[in-house]
């Protein structure tokens, strides 16, 4: 009377992956702000760049992908906001940006995830988030070259990497590892940015040259930056922001 099949492995891809493609379909450009190294200013660069692109008339989304230490919301001064559920999640608009972060759900609680769980959370977040039409989606990637970077390579094939380094020897080798990984995987690299320049060296520019990638410019170490955290208007008046504006110009001309 019929055969029963159970515990089968179906040779069709994870349905969530096709949903992710659909969710990103109307996003023109995706910039992945990464470094490999922590504490080099990825979140500040990602947030400032998003704000400037938005103020220049572009429709911009910002995704804070850091599950363990999200911080873009602190820079934006976003508090007490809950996303709207409508056939998924619509990212709330903050300072003109469609902003998505795990912080909406965990607030100040720690979220200790192991590797596979981080990957699962990332897939779920991309699956549920409805970005709509965007000119730019900026993704702020946490430190490391494991889960988040591998998942971006796997799932956001149109993403171009914007790599951040500081001139410290403690950062350079890790950044070089990320570049090697991206090169090996043939992932597009938009360019390399030097942040917190306080030494008169050109080590980051040399690094870019050695890998034949575009050096997008340097951002000086700006002691005036800390008091601007939480106030996008103040942030956009800093020396840091002026340097980011130059970099934004180069990103535009480099087909970001």
């Amino acid at each position, binding site marked *: *009377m*019929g*055969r*029963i*099949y*159970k515990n*089968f492995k*179906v*040779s*069709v891809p994870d349905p969530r992956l096709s949903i992710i493609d659909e969710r990103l379909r109307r996003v023109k450009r995706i910039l992945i702000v990464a470094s490999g190294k922590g504490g080099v200013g990825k979140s500040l660069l990602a947030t400032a760049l998003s704000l400037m692109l938005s103020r220049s008339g572009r429709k911009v989304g910002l995704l804070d992908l850091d599950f363990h230490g999200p911080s873009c919301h602190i820079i934006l001064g976003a508090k007490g906001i809950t996303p709207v559920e409508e056939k998924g*999640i619509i990212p709330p608009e903050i300072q003109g940006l469609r902003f998505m972060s*795990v912080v909406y*759900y*965990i607030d100040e*609680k*720690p*979220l*200790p*995830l*192991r590797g596979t*769980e*981080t990957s*699962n*959370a990332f897939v*779920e*977040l991309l699956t*549920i988030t409805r970005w709509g039409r965007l000119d730019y989606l900026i993704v702020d990637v946490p430190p490391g070259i494991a889960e988040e970077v591998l998942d971006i390579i796997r799932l956001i094939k149109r993403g171009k990497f914007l790599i951040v380094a500081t001139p410290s020897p403690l950062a350079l080798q890790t950044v070089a590892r990320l570049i090697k990984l991206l090169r090996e995987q043939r992932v597009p690299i938009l360019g390399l940015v030097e942040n917190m320049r306080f030494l008169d060296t050109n080590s980051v520019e040399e690094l870019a040259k050695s890998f034949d990638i575009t050096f997008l410019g340097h951002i000086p170490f700006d002691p005036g930056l800390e008091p601007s955290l939480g106030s996008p208007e103040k942030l956009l008046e800093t020396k840091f922001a002026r340097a980011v504006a130059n970099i934004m110009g180069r990103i535009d001309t480099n087909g970001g």
Partner: protein
Amino acid sequence: MLAVAREKGAKKIIEAKIKLGKLQQVDADIITQALGELSRGTLLEKTKIMLEAEETRFRCLACGHVWNLESSVGSSEEESEAMHFVPDLAHAFIRCPRCRSPDFEITGGRGVWVEYIKISR
């Protein structure tokens, strides 16, 4: 279901069972409605589809304790909603009831999956 049925050369899918993990609190009515629409004109159109909820199970990696969602204390409505969207957020809201560790794995009751299909050729 259709992919497996095709692979096995089925003429009919007589019966199927779909499991709904309780962690994500998927609404059975929505699944039924969606299946009704999606199965029109396919081998699933006349299939008897049963939906069954599966308990959420956790296993502590620190002390080995196994427990379910119902015996977890303190997750609020907002937290349940968060886990509905991203189940791994359980690590922010739930702790092992025996040793209070956040280091656990979700061993059951996550997502939506097909347990079996019964076909005729």
